[in-house]
């Protein structure tokens, strides 16, 4: 009751109905700890990547290295025929994949959002069934390699992940709820084709959802390694994306560790050093870590659109 009297002096409901300062302090501490916990590994790997080889050999990985050096990044720059190539591969796959993915998902989403479309029911089923049932890894691997001959091509890393039921549903829901029917009608009355209505009337006012799905796709392609692991042989190193370079380095090291005959000085010298590997990790992580805070709201927006069912 006392509290309620006080409320008169406070401005607004939210100031009144809130947790006690002590609880707030505890919650704040918890969240700050969680935030630190998520960032700590990134920071740690970054520090390792700028430590000198000698200090790592002596003290192991440490948050406070005895000596700092940018050697690893200099080495990366020197080996740009390999690392640089795979960096460009990653960038290329990401850009092309996102473009193709956006085309596929937005057109299908638009078509499904048209209430009077003749085959709407059939398309909806066509879209839902793959979500429930799939042929499995072996089947898609065999089909992709034996029928479409995607093995050891860039397309193997682009096409299979270009579209997904979830993205199409997010697109469709957005078009249904946000694009007014009157705009589409007006386009029809002016005699515009559906392609024109879609590209010139619908797309320009649908930038939020395009951005959301575009970002989903971008991050997915940038982070993809499984397709490379399945479809790219070790004889095609020039096709490796960065993520797979990291895997293949690790593989080589464990291979050599198992077969000690290969552990010659020569082979050791060719292997990327520890700091170098961590530097490659940073090359992968830094673009993500620097960009996602700005795009975050699109993700949250996309998730909430996707959560609306129907």
């Amino acid at each position, binding site marked *: 009751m006392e509290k309620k009297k006080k409320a008169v002096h406070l401005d607004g409901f939210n100031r009144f109905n809130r947790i006690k300062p002590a609880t707030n302090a505890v*919650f704040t501490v918890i969240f700050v700890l969680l935030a630190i916990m998520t960032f700590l590994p990134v920071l740690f790997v970054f520090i390792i990547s700028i430590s000198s080889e000698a200090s790592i050999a002596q003290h192991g990985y440490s948050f406070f290295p005895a000596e700092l050096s940018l050697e690893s990044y200099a080495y990366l720059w020197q080996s740009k025929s390999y690392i640089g190539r795979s960096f460009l591969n990653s960038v290329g796959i990401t850009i092309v994949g996102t473009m193709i993915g956006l085309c596929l998902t937005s057109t299908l989403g638009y078509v499904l959002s048209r209430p009077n479309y003749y085959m709407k029911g059939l398309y909806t089923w066509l879209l839902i069934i793959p979500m429930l049932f799939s042929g499995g890894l072996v089947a898609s691997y065999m089909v992709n390699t034996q029928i479409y001959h995607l093995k050891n091509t860039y397309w193997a890393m682009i*096409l299979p992940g270009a579209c997904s039921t979830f993205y199409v549903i997010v697109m469709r829901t957005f078009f249904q709820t946000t694009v007014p029917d009157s705009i589409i009608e007006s386009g029809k009355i002016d005699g515009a084709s559906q392609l024109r209505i879609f590209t010139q009337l619908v797309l320009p006012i649908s930038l939020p959802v395009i951005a959301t799905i575009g970002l989903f796709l971008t991050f997915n392609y940038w982070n*993809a390694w499984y397709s490379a692991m399945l479809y790219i042989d070790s004889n095609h190193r020039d096709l490796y994306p960065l993520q797979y370079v990291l895997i293949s380095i690790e593989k080589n090291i464990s291979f050599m560790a198992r077969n000690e005959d290969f552990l010659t000085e020569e082979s050791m010298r060719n292997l990327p050093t520890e700091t170098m590997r961590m530097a490659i990790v940073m090359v992968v992580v830094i673009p993500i870590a620097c960009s996602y805070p700005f795009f975050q709201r699109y993700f949250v927006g996309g998730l909430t659109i996707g959560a609306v069912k129907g």
Partner: protein
Amino acid sequence: MRKDNLSVKGGAPIIRRRKRFSWDDLELTLLSLPSIVWLIAFCYVPMFGIVFAFKNYKYKPGKGFLYSLFVSSKWVGMKNFEFLFRSPDIANIFRNTLGYNVVFLLIGVTLPVTLAIMITQLHSRRVAKVCQTAVFLPHFLSWVVISYFVFAFLSTDKGLVNSIITGLGGERILWYQDPKYWPYLLVFINTWKTFGYSMVVYMATITGIDQTLYESAVIDGASKWQQTWGITIPLLRPVISIMFIMNVGHIFSTDFGLFFQVTRDSNSLINVTQTLDVYVYKALMQSNNYNYSSAVALMQSVFGCVLLIIANAVVKKIDPESGMF
């Protein structure tokens, strides 16, 4: 041509509900053609690959893949499944797959919901924003990158954890060779990667709740605790149910990256890290055993589908408003 057609047909049908296949429908069909071709090529064509599970696939040189699969390979009925269930590893594989998934499911619902409710209560908007952004980061990192993070901590001779242990006078732990730590580690690592994302999903729903509900509750004298149980959680229920149903549908599939990459495919850990997906991958890529791996994949798919439908029915029975379809 097109213009003529539109002016003849285009006027009236806009208002009338059309039943015939109109020019408009044709245009829409053409517009969606690439996506439909993609769906058929990458989702439907591989579905026929389930015949692998019932065949003894032998590649016949010079005859091509389709001929080898459909014509020259022998039908073996359920033999592949029988062999599979007789293999000594299979019980272990199932235990791992289901065990981890049940734990992930329990943590994946309770922890993010609790944290989402907590973070919306913070007094400072800015602290909430910054922390939300921070915990969202792992969602954008791949398992490959995370495996390097883990290695930085757990590496036997250079890792931070072992440095601390030896610094305190203890014995080094061979992390990548000792299976007893990994069930906990895997649960921890998976939670670390996923809780931020789920938290943000629930948070978005909570911030969308109508404030007047809370206002009237406060006027009735409800405490924060009562508001949470009486308003927030019931309104979160549809989202929780959808996440729950989807996770139940995936209970036979695991994140390959977590179990294969993060554990560095270490053979000594296989007892606690081999799940169905790891088994399928290894059977396919390392021992070229197409039939077993596709039998497993078929089982995963069928069980998953059935479970999804059951979970949906159960959720709907409890709460008719929730459910996915």
